[in-house]
C-alpha cells in the first residue's frame, strides 16, 4: 500500500456513516482549494530552523480552523507521526493527490443501508458502523433510514442482499406460520 493509500485508508477507517463521509469529502474538496493554507504548511515543513516538535505545533495551529472532527483528528495524527510529506513538495501538490486517492477509495466502500424504527444518535450509528466494518471483509459505511413502520429491529441491505429482521417482519412470519398450522390441523381433522 502506498503512502497516499495508507493515509486515505486511515481516514476512511474512522468514518462509519454516509453522512460523515459526505461531510469529510466536501471538507477535503474545500481544503484543496485553499492554496494559501497549503503554501503556509509547505513553508513550515521546509523551514530548517524549526524542530520537528515546532513544526507539529505550527501545522496544528495552521489547521486548527478545520472543525470537521474526522479530518481534524486525522491531521493531528499525521502531524504527530511526523508525516510531513503531504506538504513537502513544491512541484507536486501531495495533498491534492491524497484527496484524489481518498475519493477513489471511498467509492470502494461497502454501503450498508440500515432501516430502524427510531432515529439514532451519531454515536450509536458509528457504533453500528464499527460493528459492520468488523463483520464485513472491507470497510463499510452506514446509510441510516428511519422507518417507524418496521416497529423495531433492523432492516439491512448490503449490495443486493436484504436481511429483514424487523419486528414487523417477525410478526408477519409468526402470523403466516400460525395460520398455516391452523390449516394443517383443519386438514388433519377433516380426514
Amino acid at each position: 500500500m502506498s503512502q497516499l493509500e495508507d493515509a486515505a485508508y486511515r481516514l476512511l477507517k474512522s468514518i462509519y456513516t454516509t453522512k460523515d463521509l459526505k461531510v469529510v469529502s466536501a471538507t477535503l474538496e474545500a481544503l484543496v482549494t485553499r492554496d494559501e493554507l497549503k503554501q503556509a504548511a509547505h513553508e513550515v515543513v521546509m523551514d530548517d530552523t524549526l524542530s520537528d516538535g515546532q513544526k507539529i505545533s505550527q501545522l496544528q495551529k495552521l489547521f486548527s480552523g478545520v472543525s470537521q472532527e474526522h479530518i481534524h483528528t486525522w491531521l493531528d495524527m499525521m502531524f504527530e507521526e511526523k508525516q510531513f510529506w503531504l506538504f513537502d513538495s513544491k512541484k507536486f501538490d501531495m495533498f491534492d493527490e491524497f484527496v484524489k486517492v481518498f475519493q477513489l477509495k471511498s467509492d470502494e466502500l461497502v454501503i450498508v443501508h440500515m432501516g430502524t424504527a427510531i432515529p439514532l444518535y451519531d454515536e450509536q450509528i458509528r457504533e453500528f458502523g464499527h460493528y459492520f466494518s468488523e463483520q464485513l471483509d472491507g470497510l463499510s459505511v452506514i446509510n441510516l433510514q428511519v422507518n417507524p413502520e418496521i416497529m423495531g429491529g433492523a432492516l439491512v441491505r448490503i449490495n443486493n442482499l436484504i436481511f429483514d429482521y424487523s419486528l414487523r417482519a417477525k410478526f408477519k412470519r409468526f402470523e403466516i406460520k400460525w395460520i398455516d398450522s391452523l390449516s394443517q390441523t383443519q386438514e388433519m381433522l377433516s380426514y
Partner: protein
Amino acid sequence: MQRQHEIEADLVRLVISVSERVVGERLVTEDHVNLIYKSLEEVKQQKDKMRAE
C-alpha cells in the same frame, strides 16, 4: 369448515395486530437499540450460513 378457518385466521390476525400495537407502545429507546443489536447478530448468522453454503 371453510368459514371456521376464515374466522380462526381473522382471530390470529387480530391477536397479532393487538400484539404489534402493545409491543410498539411499550418499547423504549434502550429496547430499540437492543433489538437492533439482536437483528445485526441475526444478519451475521445469516451471512455466515450463506458463506458456508
